[in-house]
């Protein structure tokens, strides 16, 4: 059992956003976890990116789903009621294009029974393609987003950060200063894949986010590095597929972990990792 502020996690495993739907499937798996993060929710509905949205890379996955979701109002009305009986921490991942988007999202979700919000400032697939910038690459913007959310909600806040072209210790510190309760490191890394036969990019939106075992050493580095610089509970994320990977993330300085790509390979991966840990954690 792990307690951070007012929130208790029955074990350190959280299922990562975008890899376990909205929390309304495989409920028997979700209930055994320390928490589950929904797919990213935005203010307005998003149709998502053109297909193909996913391709396999060596020991990993490149994806560009593009935050397909029904929008916060529909999510609140249609999906959340189905999640009331979940016996785990329900964490809603929120994503926007501006600090005011996040503020409105937090406000809309304030009166719900969800346990925490994960502020997603690090999705590489909704980057403004004209300047390749995401909020998570600018610590001033990160500060603004997190403090806007903090003003609107008393809920537990996780800020999910990127390590793409930015020193994550800077954005970690900014989110701590703005009042986050934990940070999650790392979101997917920039990636592109081409089909050598056709000469064309594989993904419909050309670029994507890389995840899976291929990024584990870098994720561990980021956790270890930020843990040495910023005093805040860290949720380690990147390349976890078994119990040893969890232990490595904890050794690097994580308090909790998020399991992502492994769920795509096996929707029961969370259970197997937990079994692998036995009573050791």
């Amino acid at each position: 059992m792990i307690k951070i502020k007012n929130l208790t996690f029955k074990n350190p495993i959280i299922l990562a956003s975008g890899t376990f739907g909205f929390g309304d499937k495989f409920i028997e798996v979700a209930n055994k976890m320390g928490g589950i993060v929904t797919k990213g929710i935005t203010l307005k509905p998003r149709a998502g990116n053109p297909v193909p949205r996913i391709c396999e890379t060596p020991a990993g996955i490149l994806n560009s789903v593009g935050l397909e979701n029904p929008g916060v109002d529909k999510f609140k009305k249609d999906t959340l009621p189905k999640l009331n009986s979940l016996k785990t921490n329900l964490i809603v991942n929120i994503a926007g294009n501006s600090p005011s988007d996040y503020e409105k999202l937090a406000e809309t979700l304030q009166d719900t029974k969800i346990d925490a919000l994960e502020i997603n400032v690090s999705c590489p697939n909704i980057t403004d393609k004209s300047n390749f910038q995401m909020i998570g690459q600018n610590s001033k913007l990160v500060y603004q987003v997190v403090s806007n959310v903090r003003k609107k909600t008393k809920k537990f806040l996780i800020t999910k950060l990127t390590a793409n072209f930015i020193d994550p210790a800077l954005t970690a510190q900014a989110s701590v200063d703005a009042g986050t309760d934990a940070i999650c490191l790392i979101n997917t890394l920039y990636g592109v894949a081409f089909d050598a036969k056709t000469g064309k990019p594989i993904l419909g939106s050309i670029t994507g986010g890389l995840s899976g075992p291929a990024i584990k050493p870098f994720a561990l580095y980021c956790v270890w590095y930020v843990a040495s610089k910023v005093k805040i509970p860290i949720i380690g994320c990147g390349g976890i597929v078994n119990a040893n990977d969890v232990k490595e993330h904890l050794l690097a300085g994580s308090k909790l972990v998020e399991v992502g790509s492994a769920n795509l390979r096996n929707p029961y991966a969370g259970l197997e990792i937990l079994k692998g840990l036995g009573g050791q954690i």
Partner: protein
Amino acid sequence: MIRELSKVYKIEKLSPDIYSMWLVSPVIAKRARPGQFVQVQISDSIDPFLCRPLSIANVNKNKLRIIFRIIGKGTELLKDKKVDDSVYLLGPLGNQAELAKNKNVILCAGGVGIAPLLFLAKQLSKNNQLFLCFGAKNKKELILLDEFKQLCETIFLTTEDGSKGTKGFVTDLLLAKLIPSPRPPILYAAGPFGMLKKIRSIVTNIKIYGFLEERMGCGCGICFGCGVKKKDDGYLRVCTDGPVFDLSEIEL
């Protein structure tokens, strides 16, 4: 849906790069319906990382059959499995094809798209008249013909190189031979995206069920990695809303 450790029962080469594999998978075999697929975890290793979505080509008691073309690392490793090797299967996944009754049914297959149509044909042959239009690159790729001969009234074949049947594409044949049929048939089509698109453009007056292929992540509706455009707007999941779609409802 279940994740079942399944033993390879039989593996057979059907053409230079198409293989058939029977696996002992009692629960999935019992629940499987035509149109559905399984996610095959090729290896315990982290590379290749994802499962391979393969349609269920047939079931027999506690066994199910998959048929696949070697297109990359995953299928290459799969074909090297030996009898009694085990792989994890997740399934049965996806929706099932609506089964026609007392109809003239046209089955239209392009290449390895023939696989799911075999399972379907076994079910439909009891109370429908079946006509198969099957197109492949060459004679060697016209697989499973002996099995279809027992199920179909007539079989029309095409090859791109003319080594067997009519030279050309299966869609040309479909247009020429079957559409002016007296009784409106129902059409099930499985093959490349381009083939489905062509079929929809030439066949307008009858119901067409298309079996889609698409790159997938999870195969079970939790990653939103596969998608097909809806007629109006937005996407449907190929893995959970499909893989069988009424072609009038999607954008091709």
